[in-house]
């Protein structure tokens, strides 16, 4: 699904990580850990095509990311739901329209999806906030709304960058349970986090792999590390 083959990523002459080879298979659940500045966000950007590797190859759904046209990238991103740390909503649109936005930009009719939207809002616990503007929501509500937007297109992969970074522990557990639920529905999940407690909680609920960026490479790690 997302395959790294000797992929390296460099900035300004130095390398964040090099010679990364791994395969994020369908239905897998990966955590990505590492100290701040290690390159977790960069790794995720390679996954959702915001960056291409400086060396090596990253293949998304079988396509080499370097060889994809801008339209190919747009179409591939419709199969990847991304939850950004800063959510990236359109602040002038109500939450319901923000969540439906991936359908809108894909040219799909949103009218038949209204039932799904209501279910989705109930699933993330935001039914009462459907008409609220993004700045009116709390950090946790925004993260849950971002998750709802990420899954509205029924993507194959969910990529989340520090989704619990700005929320309390209870909200972190609630977000985690939503991600685990998605994984059990067959979606691949990649979550960048430095919260080891969150990883332990996830391991108790589903089968996960932990990837750690260290010494300029990405290693499979045990949760106790």
């Amino acid at each position: 699904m997302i395959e790294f083959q000797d992929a390296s990523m460099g900035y300004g002459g130095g390398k964040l990580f090099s010679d990364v080879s791994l395969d994020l298979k369908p239905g897998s659940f990966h955590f990505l850990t590492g100290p701040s500045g290690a390159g977790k966000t960069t790794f995720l950007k390679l996954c959702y095509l915001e960056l291409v590797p400086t060396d090596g190859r990253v293949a998304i759904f079988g396509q080499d990311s370097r060889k994809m046209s801008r339209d190919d990238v747009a179409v591939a991103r419709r199969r990847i739901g991304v939850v950004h740390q800063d959510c990236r909503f359109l602040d002038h649109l109500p939450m319901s329209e923000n969540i439906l936005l991936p359908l809108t930009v894909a040219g799909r009719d949103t009218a038949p999806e209204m039932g799904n939207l209501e279910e989705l809002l109930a699933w993330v616990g935001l039914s009462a906030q459907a008409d609220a503007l993004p700045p009116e929501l709390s950090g946790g509500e925004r993260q849950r709304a971002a998750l709802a937007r990420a899954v509205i297109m029924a993507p194959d992969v969910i990529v989340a960058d520090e989704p619990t970074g700005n929320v309390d522990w209870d909200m972190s557990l609630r977000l985690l349970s939503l991600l685990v639920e998605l994984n059990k529905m067959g979606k691949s999940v990649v979550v960048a986090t430095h919260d080891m407690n969150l990883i332990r909680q996830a391991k108790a609920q589903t089968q996960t792999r932990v990837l750690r960026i260290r010494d300029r490479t990405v290693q499979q790690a045990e949760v106790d590390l």
Partner: protein
Amino acid sequence: MSLQTIIMGDPRADRVVPPTGFTANLTVFAAAAMAFLAVFAMALSFASGRLADRWESELAQSSTIRISAPADQMVAQTEAALRVLDQTPGVASARVLSEAEQQALLTPWFGPDLPVANLPIPQLIEVIEEGAGYDAEGLRLRLQGEVPGAVLDDHTRWRKPLVAAAERLRTLGVFSIALIAATTGVIITLAAGAALAANAQIIDALRLIGARDVYIARAFVRRFTLRTLIGAAAGTAFAMAAIAVLPPAGGEGGFLTGLGFRGVEWFWPLVVPPLAAFVSFWATRTAALRRLKQVT
């Protein structure tokens, strides 16, 4: 991105870009002002063209013989000149201007009470040409030999610079229209660039959720094209109204009173709003796609 898409639009796609009232008003105003200037430049160009054509046709087919002779020889020399003209191929007719006609020609300079008969004023003969006209050099030499007081003025020295000036004025009018179109493009490009920069985060977010470049560009292109069309239509209507109420060109109407449109020329300003909209479409689309290339 078809014209139909631009006109019909997609209300949901339009909503992804937040409304920008101030920029919108500036764009409409700039388009209106440019259309107003373009219509005036068009009127100037048409008026210059008409003037050039009139001078060309009126002066090209006529010439004048001026006879300056002592009073006792004036009639004889005039008759001699008429005989020469009668025998000259290419001359359709020759007519001696009456005293009243000569007085009318001098009135603008000396007033209506000028006693022409008491002044040593040359006698003028109006010569009308036919076909390819006469051999001016040959006629000049023959008059020199047979009518010593006659001077042939075939208007060439007047006509050429006047026609050239009018033609140049027409060219300047056309050039002004092109310049106005280019300036409109620049203004719209700057306004679109500002709007794109102001909405950079929205563009980033849209790309990341799978929007294609053409989808994002369309939201901006449609908005700027419609604003320009509305502004240019208003500017054109205002300019046409202003030109319509200009004083009509009378018998002595000079260039200024002839400024405007005649007959089917009135349809030409209607080209300005769609032309402005096309310039806006092209400028915004280019700016948007260039900006989008900087976004991954």
